[in-house]
Structure formats: C-alpha cells, structure tokens
C-alpha cells in the first residue's frame, strides 16, 4: 500500500492512529460546559465521599494519566516507561522538601523540572523509534532509572525509601489529607488545564499531524523529532507534577514509584479511560485507584487477575475506553441512524 520509496525508514509503516480521537470536541458547547461544571463539582466534593488519602491519590494519578495520554493519544507514542518521570520527580521533590525545607509547591515544581530534564535525553533517544519500539525503549530506560535509584542508596535510601517528606506550606497544618486535598487541587487543575491547552494549541495540531503521517509533516517543514521530543518533555513535566504531589501526599518515596508496573498501571488507566480523550485519563485514574483501594480491603488476593482481566476486556471489547465509548454513544444517540 505505502512504499518505502516515498517514505524511507520505519515511518512508512506507522501504526494506525487510535480511534475515538477528538470526538468530544464536536459535542455542542452547552454539553461541554455542563460536563466541566459537573467535573468541578465532583472534584470539590470528592474527599467528603471518599477516604481523603484515596482522593489525593486520584488527583496525582489523574495528572499522570493525562501526561501519558498526551503522548499516546495525541502524538501516537506509547510510553511504557513513564514511571521514570513520575518517580524521579517524586524523589527530587522529597529530597528538596527534606533538605531545603521549601514549601511543598516549590519542591514539587523542582521535581517536575527534574523529570522534564530527564525526559530530554531519554526522549532524544526514544523518539528515534516509533510504535512498539518506542514502548520497549522507554520501558528499558525506565528500568535503568530504577536500578540507578536502587543502587544510589546514599541519596534515595534504597529499599527503605525516603521517609519523612514534609508537607511544608508556610507553617499551615496540612497533615490532614482532607485539607491537603484542597491544597493540591488547584495545582492539579492547573496541570490538567495545561494539558488541555497543549492539545488544543497550534502545537497540538501539529502533533496530531505527526501522529497520522510523520513523513508528510516533515515535507511541510516540521522538524518531527523535535516536536515529538518537546511533547515528550512536556509530558515528562506533567507526569513529574503528579509524582511530586504523590511524594508529598504520602510523605515518603519508595522505589515502587519507578517500577515498570507503575508505568504499566498508567497505561492501563489511560486505555481504560479512553486513549486520546484526555478527560478519560482522569476518569480512569479515579476508577483504578478506587478499585485497588477496594480490592486491598476486600480480602480478594488476586489483584492482578482483576486488573489484568479488565485490561484484556477493554483491549478486546472497548478499545475506545470509557470516555470514548460514552461520547460515541452520545453522538449516536443525537443522530440516530444515517439513512442508507
């Protein structure tokens, strides 16, 4: 169908773009505002209905998922090593908070910047490949970061984890997760807004073009690798934002934040929520975090069986994820059936 004569190297065989893209954008304005308002109300209410620590986790994971979706859904790159950024930021945030005693937003910012910095070399190497290669390469690099953190005990405390990360905020008492939730909510909303802005910016348009046909984008004069790298770094920053908040939220950091299962979980969250839907990631985060919380008290031992099973089902039956399926159904409902 395509010939490598026209589009050399692997770009010729780019994967088909995931479906379900940008469907929501076509929903009428009032629907979008209603959804937004509903989302805000839920976000404000959340720690009253859920255990606040769980609500905090949901916020952090929402950012993480959105950062992964920014790459997967809008750039066509599946990072299976995003734990590297989430985790690095968690460590840096923790260290800064412990040793410099800065207010936590500053520490989190430092962590996110560190994550973005790390995303630069990893991204530089990884964006040379696409599709499944990209997934494997990011996975491998993340594993490398994991080992380095594991060995660098003088800094990371190795297996024991970085204990006692303070929640310093100009002396305010945030030790109760309930208040802490409201303290970080603005940061998280800002992060989500940033992701939304990126997707709906001229830059985001170029990314979608690159995702669909990189060779064509190059012929238009877009430096594809640099765009991808920029997206990667931005995504690393957002993941770092989530990771930093996660560290402060739990008041400590362990190696788990860098483990590949964390990367895998992030992808699960995005796929469950809906690839390329952005808000789907938030929904997915809420569901997965809540589900895990429930499972660990349920006495049901095979957590992997449930998460793995859900995952398989989603991949087989609902590839658009919850958000994608929902909006597709809504659209169909508005315009019942096209005539033959």
């Amino acid at each position, binding site marked *: 169908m395509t010939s490598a004569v026209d589009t050399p190297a692997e770009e010729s065989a780019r994967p088909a773009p995931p479906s379900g893209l940008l469907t929501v954008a076509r929903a009428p304005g009032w629907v979008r505002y209603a959804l937004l308002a509903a989302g805000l109300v839920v976000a404000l209410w959340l720690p009253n209905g859920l*255990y606040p*620590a*769980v609500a905090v*986790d949901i916020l952090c994971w929402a950012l993480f998922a959105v950062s992964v979706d920014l790459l997967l859904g809008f750039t066509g790159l599946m990072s299976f090593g995003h734990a590297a950024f989430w985790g690095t930021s968690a460590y840096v945030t923790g260290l800064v908070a412990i040793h410099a005693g800065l207010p936590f937003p500053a520490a989190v910012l430092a962590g996110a910047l560190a994550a973005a910095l790390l995303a630069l070399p990893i991204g530089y190497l990884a964006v040379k490949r696409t599709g499944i290669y990209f997934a494997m390469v990011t996975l491998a690099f993340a594993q490398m970061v994991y080992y380095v953190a*594991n*060995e660098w*005990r003088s800094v990371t*405390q*190795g*297996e*024991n*984890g970085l*204990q*006692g990360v303070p929640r310093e905020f100009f002396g305010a008492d945030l*030790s109760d*997760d309930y208040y802490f939730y409201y303290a970080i909510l603005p940061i998280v909303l800002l992060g989500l807004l940033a992701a939304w802005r990126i997707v709906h910016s001229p830059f985001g348009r170029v990314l979608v073009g690159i995702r669909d046909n990189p060779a064509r984008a190059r012929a238009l004069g877009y430096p594809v690798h640099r765009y991808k790298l920029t997206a990667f770094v931005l995504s690393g920053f957002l993941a770092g934002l989530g990771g930093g908040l*996660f560290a402060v939220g*739990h*008041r*400590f950091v*362990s*190696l*788990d*934040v860098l483990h590949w299962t964390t990367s895998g979980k992030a992808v699960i969250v995005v796929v469950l929520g809906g690839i390329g839907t952005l808000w789907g990631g938030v929904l997915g985060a809420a569901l997965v975090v809540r589900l*895990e*919380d429930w*499972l*660990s*008290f349920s*006495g049901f*031992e*095979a*957590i*992997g069986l449930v998460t793995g099973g859900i995952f398989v089902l989603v991949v087989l039956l609902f590839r658009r994820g919850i958000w994608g399926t929902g909006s597709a159904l809504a659209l169909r409902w508005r315009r019942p059936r096209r005539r033959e």
Partner: protein
Amino acid sequence: GGGGPQSGGDQKLTGDKIVLGVLNDQSGAYSELSGRNSVKAVEMAIADFKAKYGDKAVTKNISVETADHQNKPDVANSKAQEMYDRKGVDAILDVPTSSAALKVADVAKEKKKLYFNIGAATTDLTGKSCNKYTFHYAYDTYMLAHGTGTVTTQQVGKNWYILYPNYAFGQDMEKSFSAAITAAGGQVVGKDGAPFPNTSGDYSSFLLKAPTLNPKPQVLGTMQAGAELVNVVKQYNEFKLRDKGVGLAVGLMFITDIHSLTPAALAGTTYTDAWYWNFDQQNREWADRFQKETGTRPSFAHAANYSAAMQYLEAVQAAGTDDADTVVKGLEGKEVNDLFLRNGKIRAEDHRVIHDAYLAQVKPQAEVSEPWDYVKILKTIPAAEAFRAPSADCKM
C-alpha cells in the same frame, strides 16, 4: 496474667470494642510467610483471650481488620491511615517489607496508635526510626547474624566468604555477620555484594570464585532471601561447593524456603530461627491447632502475630482502657513468657521485644520423618544475647 478491669468505667474503650489490624502482604512474595494465615493466628489469639477471661474480659467485641499492602509502602501508608482513622483499628500488626514497615511506624507515631511490627528485619525500627507507639517483635538483622555467625564460626569453620544482596537489608546483614564472625575468632576472607534485584538469577561468578580464595573459606554465608536464596542454593549445589569443602550458612531462612529447596539441597545448612513449630510440646500443640485452621504448619511470623495480639489484649485488659499511651506504659518493661516469647521482655528503651532465639540446622533428607519437620535446633541463644543492646540512635 492480670485480673479484670481495674476501674469499672464502661466508656474506657473507644466504641466499646477492640479492633486489631493485620496489614501485610497477601498476594506477593511474603504472602506465605505471613499473609492471610497471620490473620488466622490473630483470630486464634482473640479466641484464646475470650476463652481465658470469659465474662471478665474488657469487651467481647474484638474484631480483626485486614488489608493487603502488596509490599508497596505507599499502599501500606494509605491502608494504615485508613485503618486507624476509619476502621477504628487500635493496633496494627505484622507489616513485612522494611520500607512499608518504616512508613507505618511514621503513621503510628502521627496517629498515636499502637503498631507491632513482626515481618520486617530492619533494626532502624528500634534505631533511628523508633517511636513511642511502635514495637518490634520477632527478629531483626542483628539477631539473624549474631546467632548464625557466632555459632557457625565456633562449630563449622573459621574462614567465611560472604555473599549478600547489595541493598539495605543485605548490607546490614553483611556488617552484622562480619562483626559476629570476627568476635567469635573467625575471619571473613572475601565478601561480595550481588546485584539486587538480580534479574539474571545467576550467581555463578561468585560461586566459582569462592573455592579459589586464599585462605579457602570453609563457610559460604549467603544473605539472599526468598527466591534469590533459592537461586544461590541451587547453584551452590550445581557447582558442588559442599564437595569442595565449602559449607553453607544462611542469613535469613523461613521454613517455607526449606520446603522450596527440599531438605536434601540444604542438608547441614545452619541459620538462626526465631521460633520453630516442633521445638517443644507447647509449640507443637499450637502448630497442630494452626494446621487444623489453615492446612499448613506455622512459620515464626504466624506465632509472633499470635503472641503480639495476645500481649496487646492482655495489656488492654490490665489497663482497662485502649488508650494508647496507657497501654504503652503497661507494655514497657514487661517480662513475658508465652507461646512465642521465651524469656521475653518488652524493652522500654527502644521497644525491642527480646526473646530466646535458636540456631537451627537443616536435617539430612533421611532424618526427615514428617512433612515440614526439616530442622533440628543446635542451640538456644538466650534472649539477652540474641538481640543487640538498645541503640543510642533511638530517641523516643
């Protein structure tokens, strides 16, 4: 044992009930050493407590909450908070994995609720991370090294080669072992930190090196645990080190590890045990009850969970209240003997719970007369010797 409630007030117990929380690994690497069977052990303790006090008990409303922390400290963190805050848990038990254990100690301190750690080995729990509400039961790296290092040096060979996984636990173990060996008149002729985690599962370069050292080591001390220990031992046998005159000592081994490797692969290996189910009649009777409940023999962690639950309930009974500070006061300095704690004492200085430990040796296959009866006890190490002196790092 103490009598009934000292003052008859009914509202001494929050919500007129006692809730014990077992927070441990129910699906991962430690789920068999403790896991859901620890919950069973705690339930046995509650039953025994109720039987013992009958109507005199502070309350009949004693229950167990349990959660799986999947060996993840962040999960442990939220679960512990949730247990204390929402599930009304008065004391959390077990918590294997050092990072999770340390994290929960933090939570206990903040929430001012009791915490009995059983599953973790790190001495930090009674060192720089100690706190008023945390008690460390069962074992720690010092205990493991001290017993095995001293006795094996005296009885098997003076020259050691130590192989340890290169992370906090392994490094800790290596230091403690080296100290114990030197103190007993032995010598560490070589030591190597193997990668941790060791994905390749291969230890052959270390095992090849061992017999070529000068002077030749008589004992290979391996500090690996769980699956990594299994790898080391399998390859130890493959390279026929025993035939080459290098014996085996293991830093941390559970009865389940012996079961995995089979006694044949380990015959003659020495290690320190905190408790052994077939040590005496008392243990054996309890082990039989346990087997009826669970279908398997108990590890020392199960017995320790039972004991910790029992001691907590006794303390509440004695104090007549579940107020944490009062209960802690009652526990501190208490001397106890029970199923698990022999010549036990709950040290006030660092909340280390000390007790007799045992130097065990794996029996040759021929001497194994029933399932799970894999070791003989070479020596009982008295409580005072088995654990380190209170650390100066610990400031309550």
